C-alpha cells in the first residue's frame, strides 16, 4: 500500500493536518524551542499572555522567535483561576490579533492544576457568545466534556494526566468514552511523557494531542519532537487499522496441521 496518508481534522471550521499540537513554555533556550517545533511537524503552537517586563522592555517576546505566518498561534489562559480572569486573558490574546481561537484553562487547584469545571463552563459560554472558538482544557470526565460541547466549545481537551507530570495516559477508558460521545474534536492535553504515551493516546481514537513539557524537559527536545511526531502518526494509523482483540490465552501463529508424526 501507499504510505499512510492522514487527511487531518477540522476544529472550529479550520482544518489541520498535524495532529500534534505543541506548547512553547519551559524550553531552556529559544534555539531549542524552534528546533523542537520544526521537528514536531506541528501547525498549532500555544502561547501565554503575560505582562511585559517594563524594566527589560527590550527583551524579546515569543513572537520574535515564532513567525505567525508559519505557525497557528493558539493563545491560552494558563494561570487563570476564575472564569472572569480567563475571559479577560482570552480577550487580550485575541486582541494580539491572530485568530479567534483560545485554549481555555480555568485552574481549580495550585497543587494538581486540575480544572475548575464550573468556571470552565461559565467562561466557555461567555467566550462562545463573543465569537471565540473555545478549546477547553478539562479533566477526563465525560459529563463535563458533554457540557462543554453544549456550552459551545469547538474542541474538548481532556488531560491524560496532570499538567507537566509526564505520567502518561492514566485512563484510556474514559478518554475513549469521551471521544465516542462527543461530536466536536477531542484533543488530549497534558500529561504525555514520552513517545509510547503519545502513541497509546492516539490509539484511543482521539483527534490529536497537545504537549509541552514532554518536549521542553526532554534532554534533547528536537529528537523527542521527532519521536512524538511519529508516535502520533503511528497511533492514529493503528487506531484506523483496527487492532486485533487482546486475549489472555495463546493462539498459535503457525498452522497446527501438517506437523510430522
Amino acid at each position, binding site marked *: 500500500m501507499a504510505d499512510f496518508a492522514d487527511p487531518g481534522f477540522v476544529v472550529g471550521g479550520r482544518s489541520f493536518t498535524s495532529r500534534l499540537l505543541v506548547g512553547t513554555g519551559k524550553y531552556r533556550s529559544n534555539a531549542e524551542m524552534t528546533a523542537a517545533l520544526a521537528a514536531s511537524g506541528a501547525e498549532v503552537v500555544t502561547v501565554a*499572555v*503575560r505582562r511585559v517586563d*517594563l524594566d527589560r522592555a527590550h527583551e524579546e517576546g515569543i513572537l520574535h522567535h515564532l513567525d505567525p505566518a508559519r505557525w497557528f498561534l493558539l493563545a491560552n489562559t494558563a494561570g487563570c483561576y476564575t472564569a472572569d480572569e480567563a475571559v479577560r486573558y482570552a480577550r487580550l*490574546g485575541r486582541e494580539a490579533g491572530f485568530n479567534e481561537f483560545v485554549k481555555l484553562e480555568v485552574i481549580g487547584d495550585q497543587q494538581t492544576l486540575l480544572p475548575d469545571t464550573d468556571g470552565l463552563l461559565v467562561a466557555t459560554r461567555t467566550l462562545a457568545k463573543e465569537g471565540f472558538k473555545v478549546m477547553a482544557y478539562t479533566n477526563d470526565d465525560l459529563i463535563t466534556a458533554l457540557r462543554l460541547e453544549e456550552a459551545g466549545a469547538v474542541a474538548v481537551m481532556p488531560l491524560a494526566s496532570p499538567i507537566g507530570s509526564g505520567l502518561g495516559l492514566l485512563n484510556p477508558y474514559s478518554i475513549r468514552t469521551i471521544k465516542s460521545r462527543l461530536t466536536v474534536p477531542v484533543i488530549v492535553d497534558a500529561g504525555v511523557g514520552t513517545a509510547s504515551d503519545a502513541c497509546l493516546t492516539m490509539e484511543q481514537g482521539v483527534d490529536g494531542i497537545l504537549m509541552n513539557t514532554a518536549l521542553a524537559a526532554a534532554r534533547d527536545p528536537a529528537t523527542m519532537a521527532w519521536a512524538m511526531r511519529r508516535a502520533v502518526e503511528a497511533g492514529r494509523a493503528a487506531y484506523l487499522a483496527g487492532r486485533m482483540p487482546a486475549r489472555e490465552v495463546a493462539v498459535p501463529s503457525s498452522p497446527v496441521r501438517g506437523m510430522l508424526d
Partner: protein
Amino acid sequence: MTGQLTVVVNGEQRRFSAPATLQTLLTELTLDPRTVVVEHERRIVRRVDLAGTAVAEGDHVEIVHFVGGG
C-alpha cells in the same frame, strides 16, 4: 504647559510626561505598539485608538504580550 503624571502600569506606579496618551506611554517605555496589547482601566484599547486615548493621573494600564506557554 507640560508636567508629569503618575500612572499605574503593570501594577507599578510610574511617572510619565503630561499630557499623556497610551501612545506616549508606550513611546516613553520604548515599546512597539505592534508587539503588545494595552488594557486601560480594564478596557482593551485597539492599536488604532492608542494615540487618541488620554491617560489621567492614577489610571491603571496593563501592557501584555505573548510569552512561551503550554
